[in-house]
C-alpha cells in the first residue's frame, strides 16, 4: 500500500509540474516539502529559491522556462513523437482518448489548457488516477479490480508514456534553463523506468 501511495503521489507531482505553470501555492508546497525537494536536488540547492519572492521566481524564471519547454521549443504531446508525420492528433482519432473513454475518463480541456488528450501532464495524471483507483480497490479488498488496475497501468505505461516521454524529457533536461524543470525531467525519466520495472516484476520501489 505504501508503494502505491508513493507512486500515486509522484505521478501527481510530475503531472502537476509538467502540465501547466506553477502557481504560488504549488511553488510554496514544493518549497515546504523536504521530501519533494530531495527528489529535485539542484532545485533544493538553487540559491534563488530562497532569496527571491515566489511571484518573482514564477514570473521571471520558472514560468518563462515552462513556456520554453512546453510551448515554444518542445512539443509535449505523444502523437507528435509517435506519428511519422509529427502531427498532433487533436480529434477523436487519438488512441489515448479511447483509453481514457474506456475507463470513463474524459479530459476537461478548459481546465487542462492542452490541445490534445495525449499531453504528458494528462497522461501522467491519468496514471495518478489509476493508482488512486487501485488504492480504493485494495481498501475494499477487491483484489481482482486491484489486479486489473495494475495491469492497466502497466499497459498504459508501455503503450504510451514509455514510447515517447523519455525522449521528450531528455529534451526538457537539455533545453530547460531552471533547475526545477531539469530536475523534474531527470526524476520523471528515472521514475517511469523504475515504475515499469516495478509493474513488470511486482517488486517494491526500494
Amino acid at each position, binding site marked *: 500500500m*505504501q*508503494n502505491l*501511495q*508513493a*507512486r*500515486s*503521489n*509522484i*505521478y*501527481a*507531482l510530475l*503531472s*502537476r509540474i509538467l*502540465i*501547466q505553470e506553477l502557481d504560488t501555492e*504549488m511553488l510554496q*508546497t514544493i518549497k*515546504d*516539502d523536504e*521530501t*519533494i525537494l*530531495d*527528489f529535485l536536488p539542484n532545485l533544493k540547492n538553487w540559491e534563488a529559491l530562497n532569496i527571491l519572492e515566489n511571484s518573482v521566481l514564477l514570473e521571471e524564471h520558472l514560468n518563462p522556462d515552462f513556456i520554453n519547454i512546453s510551448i515554444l521549443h518542445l512539443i509535449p504531446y505523444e502523437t507528435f513523437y509517435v506519428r511519422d508525420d509529427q502531427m498532433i492528433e487533436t*480529434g*477523436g*482519432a487519438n488512441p489515448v*482518448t*479511447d483509453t*481514457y*473513454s474506456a475507463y*470513463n*475518463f*474524459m*479530459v*476537461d*480541456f*478548459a*481546465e*487542462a489548457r*492542452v490541445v490534445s*488528450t495525449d499531453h504528458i*501532464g*494528462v497522461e501522467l*495524471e*491519468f496514471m*495518478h*488516477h489509476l*493508482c*488512486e483507483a487501485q488504492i480504493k480497490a485494495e481498501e475494499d479488498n477487491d483484489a481482482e479490480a486491484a489486479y486489473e488496475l495494475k495491469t492497466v497501468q502497466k499497459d498504459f505505461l508501455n503503450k504510451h508514456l514509455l514510447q515517447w516521454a523519455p525522449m521528450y524529457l531528455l529534451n526538457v533536461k537539455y533545453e530547460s534553463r531552471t533547475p526545477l524543470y531539469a530536475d523534474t525531467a531527470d526524476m520523471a*525519466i*528515472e*521514475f517511469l*523506468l*523504475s*515504475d515499469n520495472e516495478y509493474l513488470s516484476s511486482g517488486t*517494491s*520501489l*526500494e
Partner: protein
Amino acid sequence: MYLESRRSFMKGAAFTVAGVAIAKGVFTADAIAESVSESKFTNTPDSLSFYPPLEQWDDFKELDGDDWKRGGIDRKGVRSEENPDGIEVNDYTIVPTACSNCEASCGLTAWIDKKTFTVKKYMGNPLHPGSRGRNCAKGYATQSQMYDPDRLAFPIKRAPGSARGEGKWIRTTWDEAMTTIGKKMGDTLREGDELSKKSVMFHVGRPNENGFTGKVWHTLGSDAFNSHTNICSAGGRTSTIQWANDDRSSPDWANAKLVFLNSSHAADAGHYFQQSASFIADARKKGAKLVVMDPRMSNSAGMADLWIAAWPGTEAAIYLYLTNRILQEGRVDKNFVRRWMNWEVMMKNEKYLNFMVEKGYISKVPQKRDFESFIAMITELYSSYTLEYTVKETHVPAHKLEQLYDMFIWAGDSISSYFWRAAAAGNRGGWMSGRAGYLPIALRGSIGTVGGTFFHHWHVISVAGKGGSSTVGQGKRGSDIPKVDVWNELAWPPEWPLSTYEMSFLLPHLLTDTQWQEKWIKRGLNVPQKLAVWIPRMYNPVWINPDGFRWLEVLKDEKKMELTFNLSPTWSETNWHVDYVLPVGLAGERHDQHSEATRPARWTSFRQPVMRVALEKAGWRPNNPNRATLEAHIKAGLGEVWEENEFWFDMCVNYIDSDGSLGVKKMWESKRHPGKPVTIAEWYDAAFGDNLPNLYKTATSDSRYKNSEYPVYEYMRDHGAWMEENNIYSAQERGVKFDGRNLVSHGHKYPKHDLSMDSDTGVIYAKDHHNGWKYKDDKKPVAIEVDGKMMEGFATLDKKLDFFSEWFAQEWKWPEYAIPFYPRTDEEKKRMPHIVSHVNHSYMKEENSYALNTVFRLPYNIHTRSGNSKHLMEISQNHDPVWISTKDAQRQNFKRGDAIRVRIVDSVSGLESGYFVAMAIPTEGILPGTLACSHHGGRWKLKNAISIPNGVSDGKVNGTIAPRDMNDKDFMNESPRNVGQEGAQIKIEDYDGISGNNSFGIPTAEIQMDGKEGKFTYIEGLKPFHSKRFAEYNKDSDNIWWDGLSGSWQNAVAATHPDPISGMHCWHQKVILEPAQKGDKIGDIQVNYDNNFKVYQAWRDELTRPLDGDSEFRRPPHIKRPWVPLSEKAYRVDIRD
C-alpha cells in the same frame, strides 16, 4: 545512466500534501462523462455516415453542429437534465423530398427540428439512385429559400386603380384570387369556340415534374401549355428527334471510357450537374478520359484530358472530321451500323440519291443498294472533312483534333456524350452539331452500350399526370380525357412546324405583330390576337427571355393580356408586372413526381411539402384535406403558401367548373369522395401504383405499408425516391412477342390480320384503327425484324436510327439537311445559312467584332429562384464579366476590370440592337476572336421595399396558438380553420406590412422606355438590413458586404433569333467591342427594341419555310407534341394560298 540509477521512490509516500491535492485535476466531473457514456454519442464511432438508417428517420437525435463549437462533448458532455450545460441534442424528424433548383431532381432530406418545427438543414437523400446522398451548393440553398425574409407570405394582387408595373399591391385571399381567375377562365372556355381554347396560356419555366400540369390543360381542353424550352434546349432535342424520335441523349457516364462533353454542361452546371459530375468522377477513377469542347475554358475544360476550343457553331465539322477518318480507316462497327442505322431506307430512295448527286454531296448514285455500297457512299460523302479543312473552319489546332480522334478510337464502344445546350442553343443551325455528333458515335457502335450513349425515354419515368383512376372522370391513366381539339398559333406558329417545343419566347412579338396575325387569319387560321388569361408558373420571362423590353410592353398592355397571374414564391421582374402573385412552395413545399435520365436506369423522385408530411406522419390531420399543404405551411410560420397540385385540383372542381357544365369538374373529382377534389394521397397512389408495377409490388407486399389505405403513396412519402428498373442497355433489341395470333409490343396487342412487314427494311406495321391518320396508309410501325429476330427497335418511323431523315427531306421541305452535314465551302455556306451559325467567323467583318458566347450557366445560380438565396448570392458576386483573350484585350487596350461597351449586331438584318456595359477580364481561357459572358446575370428590381398592409394586423386570426413544438399535443391537435377564405386570413406574426424585395441579391434599377427605345441603369446597390421575418435564421442580414450587381441584363438588348428549323432562340451574339464612354457604368444598357422587332421579322421571313397550301398537317404527326395530346382535327391544316 538511468538504468543504473536506483533512486528510491518509496519516499514519495511521505509527501506532506497527498497526490490527490497536488494533481491539477484535468479530468472532468462524472456527470459530464456519464452524460456521454449514457448517450449514443461518441467521438470515436466505428464508422462514419451522413445519414441514419431509414428506420430512424421519424425520430433521430443528433448533436447540434453549431452548439458543438462551445467545445464538443469532450469538454461539455451531452445536454441532459443532469448536465444542462452539455452540447445541445437536436430532435429531428427526417422527411425526404427532391431538389427543385435545377432540373436534375437530386434527392433531399429535410431535417425538421421537432422542438421548433423548423427545417434546421437540408441534406441529400441516400436512397436516391441518381444523386446517391449528394447535392451541390444549390441543393443546400433550399433552406435559405425557405426562410427567405422577402418571400411572399400571402397571395397579393395589383391595387385597384393602379397600372401594371406601378408596384402597388394589396393582400388578398386564395379564395378571392381563385374566384376571379376561375371565373375568367371558366367564362372564356364556356364560349366554346376555337379561339376560347387558345386564349388561356400557361407558361412554365422549369417544369420539374413529369406530366401533372400538362394533364390539367389536357382536361381543360386547351392548347395552353407554353414551355421555356426554346430558350433552353430545343436545338439540342432536334438532333435526337431526327436520329431516334426521342427527346434527348442519355449517357452512361459512370462506365464510359471516353466522356465527350460538348460544353460545360454535365460536369460544371446544368443537365444534370452533380449527378453527372459524380458519375463522371466514377468513370475517371476507372481510367476514363474526359474531353470538353467549348470555346471557353470552363471548370470542366480546366480539368479535362483534352480541351477543344472550337469556333462557336463549327462543332459539326469536328464530328464529321471524326466520321471521315472512321470511314477512311475502316473503323466502322459494321455489325451495329448494318443492324441499326436506316441505310436500307436511304438506299431505296432513288429520288434522294439523285438529289445528293445534284447537290454535289456524292459524285454518282451507287450502282448497288447493299450495305457495303452504303458504306462506300458515305465514305465519299464525308471525304471532304479533312484535317486541313477542319482546322481552318473550327480554329482548333491539328494536333488536338488528331489527339481527339485517337481517344475516340481508343474508347471503342464506350463513348458517352450529351447533346443539349451550348453549341445547339447558341448557334443558328446548332441542332446540326448534335445531328453530326451522333454519327461517329453510332459508327463506332456506341449507342445503348455499357458506357455508351442512349436515349431518354428508356431511362425516365413520367407518371405525374397518370393518376386518373383516382378521379371520377379521367379513367385509368387519363384514358377517358378527350384530346385537345385546337392548335394554338401563338405557341406553334406556322413558320416553325418542326420546332421541338413551343415558340414561347416569341409570345410578345406574336401578340404585337398584327400584320402577322392578319396574314394568317386571311389564309384560314384562327390566330388569337389577345390572351384572356396568361399564367406564368415560377417563371420570369421578362428577365431571362431575349428582348425583355418587348415583354414589358406586352405585359403592361391589358388589351393584349387581360388577366395575368404568376404562381411564384418570390418577387421577380415578371411578377412586378402581373395582376396576381400566388405563392406556391419551393423544393420542400410542394408535391411533384420528377424523374430524369441521369443513368441507364429508371428512377423517380417524389418532391414533397416536408412540413406537412412531418405533421401527418406524427398524427396531425388538416381541417380541409384539400388544402392540407396550405394549412401545414401556416402552422410552420411560412405564411399562406400553397402548392400547385392542390391548387389546380381545387381550381378545376370548385372554381373553373363548379357546376360541371364544362366537363372539367369530374376530371378532378375524387372517386372516393365524390363532389370533392381528389387528394394528394389518392392521386399519387394511383399515379405511382397504376404505372410502376415493380413499385406497386414492393409497396403492397411490404409489411409497413400493405395494410395502409394508400400503400404506394406512403412508400414514396417515406423513401422519396424509387428505382423501377436498372441497367437498361440496348433496349431497342428487346424482343417482341408473337404467339401466332397476336404481336405484343410496348404493352399493346396487335392482331395478326392487322400486321404487315416491309421485306426490304424489316419494319413490322400494324393497322392503326384509332390514330391511323398519323401514318402512311394508316400503318403504324410497331416492331422490326433484324437478322430473323423481331424486336422493339427505336421510336422512329423505320424503327432504326435515322441517318437519313426521310420525312424531313420530303414532306417537311429540308432535303439538304436530311443527313448530317456541314457546308464544305464558302459557296455552300452562303447557300446554307440555316446551318451556319449567325456568329460564324465569316460574319466577323467589322473591326473588333467578336462571337459572344452567352450560353453557360453559373453553377451557383438558379435562374429566378436564386435571386435572394443568401449564401448563393454572397459567393456569386461579380462572377459574370466578359471573358476576352489576352491577345484581343491587348489589341483593344482593355485591362482587367475595365468597363467596356458590348454592341450587339444582327448578322441577318444588319441591324444594331444597342449595347450593354460590362467588365472585361482578359484571360488565356478563351478562344481568340470569341468572348464569353453568361446571359444569367443582371437581375433587377424597381423598388427595394413594398408596402403591403398585413390586412389582418389587428390579430383576428392567429396561425397557431400553441408553441411550435411537435412534442406538444396542443400544437399537433390544432389547425387553422377555413384557410384561404375571406375572414380567415392568418396574421403573419413576423411581418410588419413592408415586404423587402430580394434584399440579399438584387440591386435597384431605373428604366426608361418609349415603345421603341429603352434605357436601363442601376441606381442603388444592396445594403445591410435588419430582417424581421425569420429573424433568427437571417440574423446576419446586417453583414451584407456585396452590392448585388451580378452582371448586365444583356437579355434585354438581345433580339430574338428563332432558328428556322428547331425553333431554338439562338443565344450567341455577334458583337462589336469598344471602350466605355464617359458616364457609362457597368450594368447600363441601351436598346433599340424597335430594331429588335425587325430582327425577329428578318429571321422569320428570310430563313423559315412556313406551312403552305400543300401542307396537310401542322407538324409531323409521328413526332410527339409535348405535354398535351392533340386530335387529328387539331393537327390537320388547310392553308389558303
